[in-house]
């Protein structure tokens, strides 16, 4: 059974310096509050994994938590670039950032292999692209039946997988619906997992389209209402598109960003 913890307790206990950490959520249900708690806890040298690093990863990178980023698309969706990410890659600010880059299909299959207890996954991917030249984590494999050559990627098994969900019951069974992305795979691929939820309820009423992660497959659950803001939790909140736009000028400027960190993360009470 998952343990019910406060967010700050959970991050303190589950995330260690140098860990491989994945915060997933595909536009929907992004665990932003958990990311901010990682910044507040001043975790360092993390290898951050995420298919679509967006503003919470820009913030983690700008705050100096990350040593490496494993990803497939980094941007502020519908707005533009991630300036903290660019600054780290192009100017090593505040610390150098190593990158390992995949396609979405490659990343998704890395999580699938991780969740499946397999060392690698096979896909029709990366064909004719320059991506395999930049990492040793994209290789080819031959079909033992047809001889055809396909792409192979290694399993991704984070030390800690963090996702946000609509709700959990007191045994830590987690229920999420709407766009469910790669959250199940992230939790199952990770050695430890944390799910932040909008609310903890006595009973999980069935919801069409919902998936349930059994509590015995989750390490910890923390109740963090609004924990995905400015992303959204279907049935609980709407995406705050303005916040995504407002991030752009903050992220562009080191000073404004530093000020934002101070006022919006460090001086904010822990969730």
């Amino acid at each position, binding site marked *: 059974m998952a343990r019910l913890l406060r967010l700050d307790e959970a991050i303190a206990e589950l995330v260690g310096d140098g860990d491989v950490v994945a915060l997933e959520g*595909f*536009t*929907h249900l992004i665990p932003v509050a958990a990311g901010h708690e990682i910044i507040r806890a001043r975790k360092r040298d993390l290898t951050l994994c995420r*298919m*679509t690093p967006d503003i919470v990863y820009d913030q983690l990178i700008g705050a100096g938590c990350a040593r490496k980023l494993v*990803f*497939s*698309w*980094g*941007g502020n*969706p*519908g707005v533009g*670039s991630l300036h903290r*990410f*660019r600054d780290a*890659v*192009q100017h090593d600010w505040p610390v150098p950032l190593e990158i390992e*880059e*995949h*396609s*979405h*299909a490659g990343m*998704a*299959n890395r*999580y*699938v292999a991780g969740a499946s207890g397999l060392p690698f996954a096979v*896909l*029709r*991917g*990366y*064909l*004719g*692209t*320059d*991506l395999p030249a*930049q990492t040793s984590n994209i290789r080819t494999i031959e079909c033992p039946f047809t001889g055809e050559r396909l792409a192979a990627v290694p399993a991704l098994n984070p030390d800690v997988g963090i996702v946000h969900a609509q709700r959990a019951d007191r045994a830590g069974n987690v229920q999420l619906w*709407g*766009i*469910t*992305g*790669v959250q*199940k*795979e992230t939790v199952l691929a990770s050695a430890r997992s944390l799910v932040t939820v909008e609310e903890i309820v006595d009973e999980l009423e069935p919801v069409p*389209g919902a998936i349930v992660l059994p509590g015995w497959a989750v390490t910890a659950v923390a109740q963090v209402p609004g924990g995905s803001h400015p992303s*959204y939790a*279907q049935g609980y909140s*709407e*995406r705050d*598109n303005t916040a995504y736009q407002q991030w752009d000028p903050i992220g562009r400027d080191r000073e404004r960003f530093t000020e934002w960190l101070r006022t919006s993360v460090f001086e904010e009470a822990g969730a």
Partner: protein
Amino acid sequence: MTYTSDEMMTVAAARALRDGSACFVGIGQPSAAANLARRTHAPDLVLIYESGTLGAKPDRLPLSIGDGILAETADAVVSVPEIFNYWLQPGRIDVGFLGGAQIDRFGNINTTVIGDYAEPKVRLPGAGGAPEIATSCREVFVVMRHSPRAFVAEVDFVTSLGYGRDGKQRDALRPLGKGPTRVMTDLGVLEPDPDTRELTLTALNPGVEVEQVRAATGWELRLAEEITVQDPPTETELSTLRALKEAS
């Protein structure tokens, strides 16, 4: 009605979509085009977004590929691994839309980096779903604004395969899909030459001169034997497109 060159580009992309076909949609221009098509000549167009929504029927333009309205209106919502493995990879999807920072004369697209990978001039968002959209969709439509910086002789980085750096690599690798069959811009339409695979001007948007397109293209642009002029957006197309955008 007056219209912008961007509106013409979106309308051209919408017109290229056959009714009843399945379309892998990115955000921005492709989403506008696909939703416009569904509201005009292609009511049974199946919109598929990489967030896992199959058959989404939004009544406004979604603001991201994970907009809640996509899940709420979809025939089915599946996981992200499933959308790539069960739906995109086997070649079930007729058309994939792509765009990017750079496209070269053989239709290769760069959304990764301007300059050197290790010492980038500009770090771009990266691959996303594009590498597999480029090879697994039956064909690819590209929607991009014409400029010499975007339409380059050779891309700095091949994020998504067109016909390869030599125009021949795709035929050697034999992916499922045909590749970029049509590049729709704010000036006209380029299509691969059947023999050389080089992108060639086949249509102009109304009021655009060949010289304008040449000037906006970073390689010596060849012309198809016959160059047509696209019909301007109809009133229905324009008003539908604008209504979709206003609703967002």
